[in-house]
């Protein structure tokens, strides 16, 4: 069954935010990575076969306008919560991917009993007790996304034949990452203290070969949240939903349906 996606533009905090939406059923908000997102992914289609899926572009990323004042992922969290209100979405589950996982955690910490469930896939946002979050500032636009795949063939399958448009987009995404998460790089010093109130059941998913966010951060997330379990995916890097879309979609579907 082919999935039909509808793109809309929603004005949030004075900025035009791009949203793709498809499917029916319980609502699942998907928050993309620091490197932005292709418009369509097998992972999104797999979820849309089961759920009402909302995929916004973060403000300043992809097709969404940049708020010049934006300074922190917590600002993106507030704008995304505003977006859900505009869309009339209720009883939402959030799937946060990497940087989007940080935004999801911020949204949940600000609204601890609102969300039906959370799935955090290798979320940034917490300082790993062992290792550091990889610094994209000192590597090329291509090497950074590559390092987030265990299997380079999977990278090629998603991004092969990288266009100049894609390179330009990655530079814009990187600039937005700097504008919102430069220092400390890709984590909040306060977030771990604010997660304990979150009542949404949470699944933390980590690729066992994540070279961007050390898995030690996942253990902190799991300990800090009120009701979280952690699971790993074998032979998988940071961009798990792109490298193992069926596997991640299966686990998300099962968890959201069970919540």
């Amino acid at each position, binding site marked *: 069954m082919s999935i039909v996606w509808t793109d809309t533009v929603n004005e949030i905090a004075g900025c035009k935010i791009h949203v793709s939406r498809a499917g029916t059923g319980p609502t699942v908000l998907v928050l993309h990575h620091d490197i932005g997102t292709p418009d369509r992914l097998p992972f999104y289609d797999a979820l849309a076969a089961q759920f009402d899926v909302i995929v916004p572009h973060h403000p300043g990323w992809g097709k969404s306008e940049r708020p010049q004042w934006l300074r922190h992922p917590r600002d993106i969290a507030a704008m995304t919560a505003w977006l859900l209100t505009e869309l009339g979405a209720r009883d939402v589950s959030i799937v946060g991917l990497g940087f989007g996982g940080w935004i999801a955690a911020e949204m949940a910490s600000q609204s601890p009993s609102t969300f039906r469930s959370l799935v955090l896939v290798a979320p940034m946002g917490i300082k790993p007790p062992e290792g550091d979050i990889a610094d994209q500032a000192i590597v090329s636009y291509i090497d950074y996304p590559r390092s987030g795949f265990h299997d380079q063939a999977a990278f090629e399958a998603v991004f092969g034949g990288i266009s100049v448009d894609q390179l330009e987009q990655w530079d814009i995404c*990187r600039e937005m990452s*700097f504008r919102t998460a*430069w220092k400390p790089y890709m984590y909040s010093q306060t977030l771990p203290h604010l997660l304990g109130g979150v009542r949404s059941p949470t699944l933390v998913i980590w690729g066992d070969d994540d070279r961007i966010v050390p898995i030690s951060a996942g253990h902190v997330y799991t300990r800090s949240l009120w009701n979280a379990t952690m699971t790993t995916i074998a032979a998988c890097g940071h961009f798990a939903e792109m490298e193992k879309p069926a596997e991640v979609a299966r686990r998300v579907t099962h968890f959201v349906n069970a919540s």
Partner: protein
Amino acid sequence: MHMMYFTEQPMSAYDAKAGLAYGATALTFSNSHFDPNEGSRLYNEYLEDYLLAEEYGADGIMLNEHHNAPFCMQAKTNIFASILAATTRRVKIVILGNPLPLCDNPIRMAEELAMIDMISKGRLVPGFVRGGGQEQLASGVNPAFNRERFIEAHDLVQKIWSEPGPFRWEGTHYQHRVVNPWAVPMQKPYPRVWVPGVLSKETITWTAQQRYPYIALNTSIDHTKEIWKQYSDTAADCGYTAGPENFGYLIRVHVQDTEEKALKNAREFMWMQGEFTGLAHPVWANPSGYFSPSGRRGFVQFATGRSANPRGNPSFEEQIASTMIVAGTPDQVIEKLKYIVQNTRPGIMGIWANDGNVSREDRQRCIKLLCGEVMPAIKEYGKSLGLNDPWEANAPVHLRYSTDLKTRAAAE
């Protein structure tokens, strides 16, 4: 014409093979290759060189700073400016420049510069720069806000120097409760600020809007003319006519008694494989958000190896032929510099004279010939062309002090 002596202060005593083996000589090239004993020797030798440049007649000593790299040992330009303030008597101390965005406390910057101005008895030219991309990464400063920080820090320093304290500063990137430093500059209304640069059109426009001289850093003659045109057009929009006092030009020059020796030492200008700021990954030089968005599409292709370096990578011979590097006996150098001066018409000239592994003896001979013979001849030639420097032209320190504006000033 104001003529300055400049050197990058090369850390020539590092293991060049290690840099080539690592594939980079900047940012992440380990400082385990820095030998502080050699560093001590070189710092002190470079100080001697500056004193010699004053003794032999240079109008100014031009200083700069860079971080994490052997091509420039000077990590804090205000340190050398402070030393020269006390050890020289006549030369202008020209800082080109302090990287303002790197500074989290512009009040401290204003204080340090005021102290240098007073200790030097009013000889400071406190230029400002955005700082290269690598400097942002080496200092942990967000490249995406580089230009905003540059302008706001400048505005705060300017206010400190031109209005009595105390006052409060509630800006976007800087907030200060009580701005009231007791050290203020001796030169009034405040010391002349010059701005050097290479590529950024936004910086040229901003500099012209301030009426600060713009110093083109070893750009080609054609490119330099384009810079002057952009500056002049902006000046006209602001209501004044730009002249030689608004323009400076830095050029690599090496002088010796024989052409052969001059050419041999001038090859050292290529010691970083022709790169001005060391061998580096392109994204270090232009981290995302640092560069003008108009250059994004071209840059991402260069950064991923899909297009050639927009600056090109001309050989030593090509650079000698195109006068990007000048080398020879005093007479040969004077002839070539006259050609450059005639075509670029600067009121300020920086001579970048010694780079890489030039021996102490040869460096000092170069300085003696350069400051004692070449500079006087070029100054005389500049005079015949009417190329006045900002002091000779009695140019206003900033647009706001202009008395000759034809329209309402844009930068007010």
